[in-house]
């Protein structure tokens, strides 16, 4: 309620008593202060004001409004009121005031200067609202928030503990798996050493190599930060240097070109097994006798699929010695089926080329 110079009550066809009556019976506590008397005393209050403060009309008229202040009244807010009044400016403040009985309440006040026809401030008009309930609700809200925060912290601590436990368990299982792979590998190699040279020993050594490929995949899976992804490039680099170390560099050579491809952990073992099988197969069968040659292996990622090509310039499928067991080839075909992929074997003239396409989930 702001009264401007050009908006005097006399501009309206109202009897001044009507306005006074309306203010007197308003449920909003109101007070009028005389700006020109020393210490600016209260000159008028309505019934709502006396109800709010507990003071009788005669107990407040003639006194300064600071009579409502007490120990918990915010000094900064009081200073704001004083400054606004000195400058003849309106202001809004919220602070603790005290009733006659000494109890305090949150008082939200709007204070406005009232000017006469000459523009001189003659009075200050104040309308008030008891904000105690609102403040209480806000405090209750803050308490509720604090409680929620505490519960969230508690729950987070529980989850962290559970995660820690899960991580510890994962490490324990990982450690056991690695150890068991080592035992399996040692077991097979020990048996191979005690088996006379020939088909049985070759078979055992072949199995040991396959276990080795799976072991490498497993070792890489858990040594990197993310145990859910498998880096095909790293695996291929390791496999190739392992296989190259066993080759006569004058005669056979193995080359790889792998895109940096990370696949889901579930694909690690089958892919490792498949790549190992195809590569060793090519090395074993493509170059009979003293035939020299080269095996190349490539992995590219194209349109949500992994493309693997293994080629050699050896004798080719048709000329290779018939291999009735053909375990390597059927192992590869089984793994490709497991990965829902497709495989094609081509005569490369010279040599053989195997093309494999494995779909990668969209998350890969």
């Amino acid at each position: 309620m702001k009264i401007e110079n050009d908006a005097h009550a006399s501009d309206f066809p109202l009897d001044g008593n009507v306005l006074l009556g309306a203010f007197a019976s308003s449920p909003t506590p109101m007070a009028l202060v005389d700006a020109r008397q020393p210490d600016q005393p209260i000159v008028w209050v309505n019934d709502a004001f006396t109800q709010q403060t507990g003071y009788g009309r005669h107990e407040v008229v003639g006194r300064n409004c600071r009579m409502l202040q007490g120990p918990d009244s915010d000094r900064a807010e009081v200073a704001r009121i004083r400054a606004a009044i000195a400058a003849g400016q309106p202001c809004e403040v919220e602070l603790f005031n005290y009733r006659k009985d000494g109890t305090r309440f949150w008082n939200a006040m709007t204070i406005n200067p009232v000017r006469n026809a000459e523009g001189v401030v003659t009075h200050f008009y104040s309308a008030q609202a008891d904000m105690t309930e609102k403040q209480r609700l806000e405090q209750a809200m803050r308490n509720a928030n604090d409680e929620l925060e505490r519960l969230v912290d508690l729950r987070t601590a529980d989850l962290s503990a559970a995660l820690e436990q899960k991580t510890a368990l994962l490490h324990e299982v990982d450690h056991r798996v690695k150890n068991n792979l080592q035992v399996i590998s040692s077991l097979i190699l020990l048996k191979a050493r005690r088996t006379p040279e020939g088909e049985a020993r070759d078979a055992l050594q072949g199995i040991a190599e396959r276990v080795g490929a799976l072991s490498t995949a497993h070792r890489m899976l858990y040594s990197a930060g993310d145990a859910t992804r498998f880096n095909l490039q790293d695996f291929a680099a390791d496999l190739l240097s392992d296989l190259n170390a066993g080759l006569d560099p004058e005669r056979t050579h193995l080359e790889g070109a792998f895109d940096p491809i990370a696949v889901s952990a579930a694909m690690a073992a089958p892919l490792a097994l498949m790549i190992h099988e195809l590569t060793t197969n090519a090395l074993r069968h493509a170059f009979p006798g003293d035939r020299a040659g080269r095996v190349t292996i490539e992995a590219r990622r194209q349109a949500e699929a992994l493309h693997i090509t293994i080629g050699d310039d050896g004798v080719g499928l048709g000329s290779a010695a018939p291999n009735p067991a053909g375990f390597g080839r059927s192992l590869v075909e089984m793994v490709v089926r497991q990965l829902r992929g497709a495989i094609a074997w081509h005569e490369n003239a010279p040599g053989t080329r195997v093309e494999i396409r494995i779909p990668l989930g969209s998350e890969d």
Partner: protein
Amino acid sequence: MGGDRCGKGLRVLVVEDEVLIALELECLLDDLGHTTIGVAASSREAIALGQADPPDVALVDVHLVDGPTGVEVGRTLSADPRTTVVFMTANAKRVPDDYAGAFGIIAKPYTERVVASVLHYLCERRAGRTGDRPGPELSLDGFNLAPRARA
């Protein structure tokens, strides 16, 4: 892999509680031209054997019969300048940051190539045929060189 033997090879103490792994490792060492001077399954045994007759190299698993005591075995044995300790473990996280005085860690499951390369380097180093700091020949997946052994 046993092709390029390094003189008379190394005298190796195997500290491993899995009999099968220990036995196969012995065979591998033999293939590579090294000599296994003993196999220990517990920390007490390992320290007793290693101190009675200090080996050139001790291959030490972290988990032994008496618990994760391999780290202490490594620390004790590497105190003797005649012995180089290499951990062989599936649980490299158990090895402290200073590698307890060891030269490096071979991760299990290991490949024969890694075992062969590490021992070959150590053998050449003993014979004075290589520098004190290993080069790219020991940048192998499955082998971690101790920080103080790095170039």
